[in-house]
């Protein structure tokens, strides 16, 4: 027995001892098992669509009976999640517990593993593509009512995971402090001295990784061979323009990070938040539109399986998709909704304009890029 499993055994034993003091040492989720059984004959935990439970009404009923939903790593100012959570709560009367809003995708998985079988475990995930691809064994397949409207390459055919919203890599800048960039190469100019920040370390954070890929495309490379992207950041550093600060809403507001590589929806939301205080603009380079989608999935061991599935239905409904759109993110059904005329036209109009066909890197392309990055990033900026 490895020391790690030893530790887990003793922790579980300890938890049980503590639990027996209060109640019997039983799985804390016993009520969800019974409430999850709909008239369709399938329990919510194994339902792969609302029909399995006897229709949408039955799903709502089962979810309301659970009354709780645990979400994790959803910052309220990220893709409008604050409003989405509020809308879901008031629509269904289900209380959402939003745990560790600033956690990373990797933290979501490790928390789910750590709290497995407990009532506090996360019910649903919103993950970066790489982390999702590595952990599909932890997901329960589920197809929402609008599953067919999600483009083929943005979902698993069985509904194990489905892309939820995405955006394009952009450059956010304080128009009052720096000139408007018209290309990525502009950032090498002296006007940007000590002002250009990347949202995190690309060997660590997904957004920063996409930033390097975008720069690579802009400099004539590809998302797969990112040599040119890494070289550009080296030049940026040699010119004294690269600011090695991890940007946050606070550093942007205080003026410490006047130019930031980040997803367009985050930069747009930042601009909306600072309206009147700062002219924060978002620019997607014409020759380098690199997109990335996040992944939505249901935890296989969700303590509230019906609520988890109802949350999926809500997110992929017109209402949920429009809420993301309002936050500046591009929901996965945007194309279908625009065709059907159900998309929020004002919100869609406010999205940053893109001039060329977006590139969405595949996992194979990402793998090659990461390999190069792991070996060369520290050298380029160190």
């Amino acid at each position, binding site marked *: 027995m490895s020391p790690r499993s030893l530790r887990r055994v003793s922790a579980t034993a300890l938890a049980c001892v503590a639990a027996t003091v209060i109640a019997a040492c039983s799985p804390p989720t016993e009520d969800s098992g019974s409430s999850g059984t709909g008239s369709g004959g399938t329990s919510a935990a194994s339902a792969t669509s609302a029909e399995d439970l006897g229709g949408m009404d039955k799903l709502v009923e089962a979810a309301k009976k659970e009354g709780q939903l645990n979400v994790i790593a959803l910052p309220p100012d990220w893709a409008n999640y604050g409003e989405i959570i509020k809308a879901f709560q008031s629509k269904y009367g289900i209380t959402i517990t939003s745990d560790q809003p600033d956690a990373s995708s990797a933290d979501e998985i490790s928390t789910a593993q750590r709290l497995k079988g407990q009532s506090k475990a996360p019910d649903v995930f919103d993950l970066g593509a790489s982390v999702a691809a590595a952990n599909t064994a932890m997901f329960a397949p589920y197809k929402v009512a609008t599953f067919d409207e999600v483009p083929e390459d943005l979902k698993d055919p069985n509904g194990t995971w489905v892309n939820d919203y995405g955006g394009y890599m952009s450059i956010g800048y304080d128009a009052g402090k720096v000139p408007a960039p018209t290309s990525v190469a502009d950032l090498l100019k002296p006007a940007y001295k000590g002002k250009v920040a990347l949202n*995190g370390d690309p060997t660590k*954070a997904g957004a920063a990784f996409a930033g390097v890929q975008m720069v690579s495309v802009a400099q004539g490379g590809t998302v797969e061979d990112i040599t040119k992207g890494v070289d550009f950041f080296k030049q940026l550093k040699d010119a004294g323009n690269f600011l090695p600060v991890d940007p946050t809403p606070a550093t942007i507001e205080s003026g410490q990070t006047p130019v930031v590589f980040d997803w367009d929806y985050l930069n747009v939301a930042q601009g909306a938040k600072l309206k009147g205080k700062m002219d924060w603009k978002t620019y997607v380079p014409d020759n380098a539109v690199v997109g990335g989608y996040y992944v939505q999935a249901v935890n296989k061991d969700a303590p509230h399986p019906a609520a988890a599935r109802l949350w999926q239905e809500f997110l992929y409904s017109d209402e949920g998709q429009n809420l993301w759109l309002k936050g500046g993110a591009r929901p996965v059904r945007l194309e279908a909704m625009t065709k059907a005329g159900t998309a929020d036209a004002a919100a869609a109009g406010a999205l940053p304009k893109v001039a060329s066909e977006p590139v969405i890197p595949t996992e194979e392309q990402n793998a090659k890029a990461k390999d190069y990055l792991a070996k060369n*990033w520290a050298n380029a900026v160190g």
Partner: protein
Amino acid sequence: MVPFFAYATVFLIIPTLVVVVGAFLSGGRPTLGNVRALTEPAVIAATQHSIILSAVTALAGAVIGGLLAYAVATAHVDSVLRRFVASLCGVLAQFGGVALAFAFLASFGASGFLTTWLAKAGVDAGPGLWLYEWDKGLMLVYLYFQIPLMLIVFLPAVEGLRPQWREATETLGGSTWVYWRRVAAPILFPSFVGATLLLFTNAFSAYATAAALVSQGSPLLPLAIGNTLTSEVILGQENIGKAMALEMVAVVAVAMTLYAVLDRRASKWLAP
């Protein structure tokens, strides 16, 4: 003794075992691959940086802190200055981590207090990028807890120098130089080197200060380990992180063994 062993088991022995065993496992199978990954150029560079940073700040901290300790020791035991400096250092030696990093950012950062103040006075201090470099800003920041720590750990040794030894030297016709060269230095030397080693391990294992200031490239070993555990881009390298942790344990073990040997020599002279 039972509480001590319980504490040591939970917070020292189990974590160490997790690191040691994990360093030789990959996906549940024994392997030497993690240890072999330590020879990757990026890991070697991180090791070198960590050792250089720790050695330079330990030496500089030891020399400056040592001189300060001597200056303080010459003051009267009950003097206000002495009590003030000693308690100030007690606070500053623990004033590491995010709070210290923040203090530097608030002073020297692009929108820091000193930077904007200098700009108003017409001096362009630049964007202050040096602050985020491990071999510039971080060294300065580390000295802020290394020097006070040196003062605290070295002061008892300096205080242990008995006036009689000096008087004896002078009675026998020795000059100040001879006293320092032949009496004080040999007595203080083991304590000095021991304290320097302590400073070295202190800097070597520091994480929060570095993490708060350096956000790109993971140039130091503790940062590289942190990266293997939290990265959402490059996955499945947790056990390489454990191998790096094992490497750190080895370096600290060498330093601590030397420290123990020197401490035994020093206590021969400085025992009360």
